[in-house]
């Protein structure tokens, strides 16, 4: 693989609370290549959105990056001053959030919001910015863009607003977009349109995407690779087809089994018993061990020693089942980097 566009090394995000430190993202390492779409899936509270927020420098205090590094094009960005980080946001890393209904300021026309973003980052005249805004709106499929540019957010439907949000994220041509649940708030029929649009635009612009979602359907449709997160850690990461069709980590296996398939008649969906541990009660060893159906095959190691990512088939899984093939890919093994 060539130099990754984004490299996250051993990221740990913590929240100081009255009852001590909560580690919401624990030792997460991942890379995104130029033009690649990385899906990040997991249940609520698995730390996927926080990972995205940390990358874009928008962790809400008191949450903070406790350790680890984030590199964009080989340049470390997690230790930048707020002002330097601001210049990266929008310009090099764009973001799309879950709810298009609330992502736009209701008091300003969409045109003003787009040109404002362009003028902040690019050295153009207001007229050029406006023209560019109209082009962007055309590109995201908003009809009569030259008129619609003077409309307010409430005059657009949810799907249209998410298109506006996408145009805003792309306004200054960032190389990476963090899309945090971009379709969750939309109707199913609109979801497909938005995903198709996002995929098309990113392909055309060569933009990489970190697609955070809990919707495996969206991931299967869009992503090149996928990272499955559980209790703040990456449980499994690999090419999307492999993870979906040949999941290796017992959690991923359970997750895939729990997805209803339209084409097949299944008596019962499988389910994973129990629930994800709370952040203040993550068990020792593998975080998944209390729910794991294959714990018996390994023995005590699961409950005492924490597994890191290991080569497992064509993916990498953080599971002792694969301990004989400990991963050699340096970018994804915490230990080798930490050393």
């Amino acid at each position: 693989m060539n130099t990754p566009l984004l490299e996250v090394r051993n990221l740990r995000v913590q929240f100081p609370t009255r009852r001590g430190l909560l580690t919401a993202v624990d030792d997460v390492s991942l890379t995104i290549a130029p033009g690649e779409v990385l899906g990040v899936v997991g249940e609520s509270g698995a730390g996927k959105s926080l990972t995205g927020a940390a990358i874009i420098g928008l962790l809400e205090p008191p949450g903070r990056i406790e350790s680890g590094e984030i590199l964009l094009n080989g340049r470390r960005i997690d230790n930048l001053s707020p002002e330097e980080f601001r210049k990266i946001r929008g310009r090099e890393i764009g973001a799309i959030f879950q709810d298009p209904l609330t992502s736009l300021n209701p008091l300003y026309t969409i045109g003003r919001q787009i040109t404002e973003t362009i003028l902040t980052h690019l050295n153009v005249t207001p007229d050029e910015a406006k023209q560019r805004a109209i082009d962007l709106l055309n590109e995201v499929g908003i009809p009569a863009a030259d008129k619609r540019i003077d409309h307010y957010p409430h005059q657009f439907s949810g799907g249209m607003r998410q298109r506006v949000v996408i145009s805003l994220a792309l306004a200054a041509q960032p190389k990476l977009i963090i899309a945090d649940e971009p379709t969750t708030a939309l109707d199913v029929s609109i979801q497909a349109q938005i995903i198709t649009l996002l995929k098309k635009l990113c392909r055309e612009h060569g933009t990489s995407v970190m697609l955070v979602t809990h919707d495996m359907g969206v991931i299967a449709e869009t992503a090149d690779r996928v990272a499955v997160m559980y209790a703040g850690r990456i449980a499994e990461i690999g090419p999307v087809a492999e993870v979906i069709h040949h999941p290796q980590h017992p959690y991923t296996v359970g997750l895939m089994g729990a997805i209803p398939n339209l084409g097949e008649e299944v008596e019962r969906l499988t389910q994973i018993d129990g629930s994800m541990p709370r952040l203040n009660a993550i068990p020792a060893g593998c975080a998944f061990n209390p729910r794991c159906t294959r714990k018996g095959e390994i023995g005590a190691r699961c409950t005492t020693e924490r597994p890191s990512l290991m080569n497992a088939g064509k993916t990498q899984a953080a599971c002792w089942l694969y301990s004989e093939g400990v991963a050699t890919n340096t970018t994804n093994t915490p230990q080798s980097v930490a050393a």
Partner: protein
Amino acid sequence: MLAFIIRRLLQSVLVMLTVGFIAFSLFNFVGDPVSLMLPPEATQADRDDVRKSLGLDQPFYVQFGTFLGNAVQGNFGISLRLGRPVSQLLAERLPATLELAMTAAVFGLLVGIPMGVYTALKRDKWTSKVLLTGSLVGVSLPNFLIGIFLILIFAVWLGWLPSFGRGETTAIGFWTTGFLTTEGLKAIILPAITLGFYPITLIMRLVRAEMLEVLRTDYIKFARARGLTNNAVHFGHALKNTLVPVITITGLQLGAIIAFAIITETVFQWPGMGLLFIQAVQFADIPVMAAYLCLIGFIFVVVNLVVDLLYFAVDPRLRVERSGSGGH
């Protein structure tokens, strides 16, 4: 929007009718005006004559109608204490009160909004905490006490500013203004601060609370994610979204400032309507009290109407019918 204005106007008329009715019933609470006007030895026939000539033998709704008819034309009768038309008295006093109230309101906005923004943005700074604690004092200290303190410090000890009156005034048509002379300007400072103290603290706390709320919204988060500068996020996006409630409260406060200038005017012997009203209360000068009540009611209604119209200027979501036609 037109329908909205008409609806609000109708509501305003209803409010004014109610206020008028209350003002009208004041007359009936202080005894029979006929026995007040006639000497004790007057005969029953004399009394009936006077009663008839004053229209007091009519049923009350006819009397109320006459009262309203006169009130609409600005005729509130003759002051019992001063023997002059009430409308004339109020018109003389109105400029003083309005100038004081406006200065206090502008002062409240100019100081209150920046302080609110500051305390919201620099939440953890000690200066914010000092301001917040100080504002509690402002909210809870009674008006007259602040006025007396100010007089003590700036008029008695330091001798910088006058302690009472309006200074020299200039007449422009029917309006007398104190803004054109140094004396007048100096005279308005202390009463305006006194009157503006509560609005400042109120507006500051309100702006702060609203700002904190708005700063948590998704569109602010998204504005940050777009890499906008802090100034653009805070003042371009956040502040404007806090304005609707601020306008509401400021509008209501403006009415309240005018209405409750009574105390400040008394402390500073400011020759406004409030002082007139206090004196009227002491003399049971019912026509003045009734007229004052109606006027204050009217000012509240007008201010609220203006506030409603300002919403349209601030929030495009309310203008939907008008701007929607510009599309396709």
